[in-house]
């Protein structure tokens, strides 16, 4: 038995944990629940480590089938539950389970005292299981199961505080309802993305006759692809076909014929052959089909990874508890889109050479542009937010944009590298932000006990403190030293300052964009590079703004003044994450590129470029300038003006409002989609009752009645009735006379019978008497 056969455990352990907590959790103390949940997370991480060590030992990984799932033998549909251990999936497992475990531990402190403590950890374990299923699935459908289940967990956890009845600071909506709405929004927007994904899966099945990714390719095979440039037609790879007597990928008529190898090898073979795919009664060129599939997948990516145009759910998702924001909405779930594109690198690279879209764009170009534009836009929005978690949310969207841009540019290693480092520092930032919020809440409580009243608060209308609003903070550096230091580390990493983790990974992305522009002469590369550098500048600026606003200056409220540091169970995970954020860059240190080499085994199109000092310096300089600007604006003077406005609010004017309201995306959706949707729904429901129900009723059922009414009214009463009544009346009168015959006495009847008999006899006998 190999170590890889352990892989099902990585999903089953968290499931066991959640079942255990669901079963006996109500009899346990918080401590017991926490042990079960964190233990399950930790064990999964250990399994991931074991798998990683197995791979590092030079083994190629393994596909571990568990059990049949959707199997229709007659038509060859066979989609099993199967798991895949290769370097890509193990990377994700390590990141997810590792960061997940730390966040579990942190959450024990954060959720302390919550009435639904047990429920929270059940959801967290469910999320872990789902996310690990997503990254280990060996076919598209298992991946999709994880993909939707993480969406479900997101829904459950965003809506976790669904019973809160305090009103929301900005909108005045009751908290529980706001959470519910945010949860619904997240689920539904994700479903829109899933719509694209599921269509892609259907097309893949009809093209390839399977949903399996294909055999795990060795490093040698991957190397063979290195020189394959975009769109270049290369020889089909028969060496990957099992046995050699494999079916030809193309029939003599040029129709693609599945060889049963798995999607990725077949995709290459089909592309090489340039065959047509039979889809129902139509035939579609394989290139077109792959373009469609990759674009549909991109829809899924924009939903899950919060890219334009489906990013709108993520800021609202911050309504959930902070550990959830850290785990799901920063470190792991939202990166699933990046993972998906990386996993499908073969398809995306195949699509790169097909020029059937306008402007000569190919699907990966579109992926890169979507990512870059998102990165830039979210970066600008983050500048104008007050809520500490919202800033981080937009920062997450922006960083996800970086990753998506990276994988779109073909920089799969850079994208995955940034995914990992981002998991470290963004989890760190969120958890530290949670620590800040907790501290301020604590301070507010403390201040309240001392009977001090807030002179001025922001957010809530009536003197109630919003612990997430940065305007209510300030000067926390002395009250919460640990949190302060880790926050600064996270901020530096995010801003891409040397030598923190973010610097290395972001630099690789910029480098990929640069190379795409300079070496391949692809204008998309240049455009993406410019957008990303802009986004990086904004990143450094808003992180500076945030740090200065929270930790420096004088406390702006009593709560901030009385804030206190959190217990070790919350700070220790922060310290671990801070260490990872500092040293994470070593993962793919220039020159050695261990991470790139590692990924090459499972990502055929992985490549690593050499470190470009000039580009790094430029990026660093820009980040430096942005930080300096933040220092000038938010540190040299009090961060807020005397009337409580941001330093930039007045100079920017309407632009500030535009940014603050996230480029009016929500308003646009509200007017363009939700309102018409609701109106049409209402209209249809109205029409359904008015016409289909009542109309049909009146038409058929009612028409029937009307005819019946006519027949029963004019016709019947007028004509038939009169005739019948006449007959009836006569009969009645006759009967009235005849009635007297009925005496009711038996003997009378008997007599009549007797007389009748006599009469009959008489008639019978008459011929006898007279006839002869």
């Amino acid at each position: 038995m190999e170590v890889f056969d352990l892989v099902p455990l990585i999903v089953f352990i968290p499931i066991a944990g959640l079942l255990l907590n669901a079963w006996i959790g109500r009899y346990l103390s918080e401590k017991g629940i926490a042990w079960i949940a964190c233990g399950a997370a930790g064990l999964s991480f250990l399994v991931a480590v074991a798998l990683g060590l197995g791979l590092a030992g030079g083994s190629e990984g393994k596909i571990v089938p568990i059990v049949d799932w959707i199997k229709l033998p007659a038509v060859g549909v066979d989609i099993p539950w199967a798991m895949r251990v290769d370097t890509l999936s193990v990377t994700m497992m390590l990141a997810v389970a590792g960061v997940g475990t730390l966040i579990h531990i942190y959450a024990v402190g954060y959720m302390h005292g919550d009435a639904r403590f047990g429920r929270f950890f059940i959801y967290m374990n469910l999320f872990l299981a789902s996310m690990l299923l997503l990254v280990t699935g060996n076919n598209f459908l298992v991946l999709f199961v994880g993909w939707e289940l993480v969406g479900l967990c997101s829904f459950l956890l965003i809506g976790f505080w669904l019973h809160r009845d305090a009103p929301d600071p900005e909108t005045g909506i009751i908290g529980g309802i706001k959470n519910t709405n945010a949860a619904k929004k997240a689920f539904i927007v994700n479903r829109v993305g899933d719509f694209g994904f599921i269509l892609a899966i259907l097309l893949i099945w009809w093209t390839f006759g399977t949903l399996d990714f294909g055999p795990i390719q060795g490093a040698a095979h991957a190397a063979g692809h290195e020189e394959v440039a975009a769109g270049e037609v290369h020889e089909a790879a028969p060496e990957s076909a099992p046995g050699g007597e494999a079916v030809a990928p193309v029939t003599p008529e040029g129709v693609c014929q599945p060889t049963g190898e798995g999607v990725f090898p077949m995709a290459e073979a089909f592309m090489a052959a340039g065959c047509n795919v039979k889809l129902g009664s139509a035939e579609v060129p394989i290139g077109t089909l792959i373009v469609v599939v990759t674009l549909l997948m991109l829809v899924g990516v924009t939903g899950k990874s919060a890219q334009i145009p489906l990013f709108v759910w993520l800021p609202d998702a911050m309504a959930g508890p902070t550990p959830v924001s850290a785990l799901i909405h920063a470190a792991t779930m939202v990166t699933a889109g990046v993972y998906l594109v990386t996993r499908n690198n073969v398809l995306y690279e195949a699509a790169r050479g097909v020029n059937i879209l306008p402007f000569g764009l190919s699907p990966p170009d579109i992926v890169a542009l979507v990512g870059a534009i998102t990165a830039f836009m979210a970066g600008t929005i983050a500048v104008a937010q007050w809520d500490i978690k919202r800033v981080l949310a937009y920062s997450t969207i922006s960083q996800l944009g970086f990753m998506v841009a990276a994988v779109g540019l073909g920089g799969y290693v850079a994208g995955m590298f940034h995914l990992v480092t981002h998991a470290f520092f963004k989890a760190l930032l969120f958890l530290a932000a949670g620590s800040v919020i907790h501290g301020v809440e604590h301070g507010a409580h403390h201040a309240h006990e001392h009977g001090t009243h807030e002179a001025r608060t922001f957010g809530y209308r009536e003197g109630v403190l919003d612990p997430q609003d940065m305007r209510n903070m300030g000067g926390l550096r002395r009250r919460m030293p640990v949190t302060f230091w880790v926050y600064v580390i996270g901020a530096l990493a995010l801003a891409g300052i040397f030598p923190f983790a973010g610097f290395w990974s972001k630099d690789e992305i910029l480098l990929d964009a640069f190379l795409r522009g300079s070496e391949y002469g692809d204008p998309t590369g240049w455009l993406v590079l410019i957008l990303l550098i802009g986004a990086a500048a904004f990143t450094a600026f808003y992180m500076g703004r945030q740090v200065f606003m929270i930790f420096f200056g004088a406390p702006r409220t009593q709560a901030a003044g009385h804030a206190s540091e959190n217990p070790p169970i919350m700070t220790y995970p922060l310290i671990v994450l801070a260490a990872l954020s500092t040293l994470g860059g070593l993962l793919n240190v220039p020159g050695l590129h261990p991470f790139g080499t590692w990924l090459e085994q499972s990502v055929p199109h992985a490549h690593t470029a050499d470190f470009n000092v000039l580009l790094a310096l430029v990026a660093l300089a820009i980040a430096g300038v942005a930080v300096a600007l933040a220092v000038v604006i938010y540190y040299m003077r009090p961060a807020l003006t005397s009337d409580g406005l941001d330093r930039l609010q007045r100079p920017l004017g309407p632009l500030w409002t535009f940014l603050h309201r996230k480029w009016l995306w929500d308003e646009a959706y509200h007017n363009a989609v939700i309102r018409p949707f609701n109106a049409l729904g209402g209209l249809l429901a109205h029409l359904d009752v008015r016409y289909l129900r009542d109309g049909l009723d009146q038409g058929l059922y009612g028409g029937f009645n009307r005819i019946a009414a006519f027949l029963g009214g004019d016709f019947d009463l007028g004509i038939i009735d009169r005739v019948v009544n006449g007959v009836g009346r006569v009969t009645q009168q006759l009967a009235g006379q005849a009635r007297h015959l009925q005496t009711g006495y038996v003997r009378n009847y008997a007599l009549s019978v007797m007389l009748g008999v006599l009469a009959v006899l008489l008639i019978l006998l008459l011929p006898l008497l007279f006839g002869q």
Partner: protein
Amino acid sequence: MEPAPLNISAYVVLSAILFAMGALGVLIRRNAILVFMSVELMLNAANLALIAFARFYNQMDGQILVFFVMTVAAAEVAVGLALIVVIFRTRRSINIDELSRLKD
């Protein structure tokens, strides 16, 4: 052995007398039980005639028919008496002149 020739008319006359008595009983009596007995009398008058003719023509049909009549009569007695008992229970009377509710 040839059966002795039979004077059929005596039997027929007796049967007719019995039948007439029965019929009169049915028409005149008010007590349900007596009406009932009169019905039996009529049936047995018919039986007598049947037997007589069967013997006269030396055929079995008449006798078979008598058995049927007797069976039916027995059944009829059972049902009829049961009805009378029920009627008596509910009406406290078996005077058939009072049993004219169906008229209304």
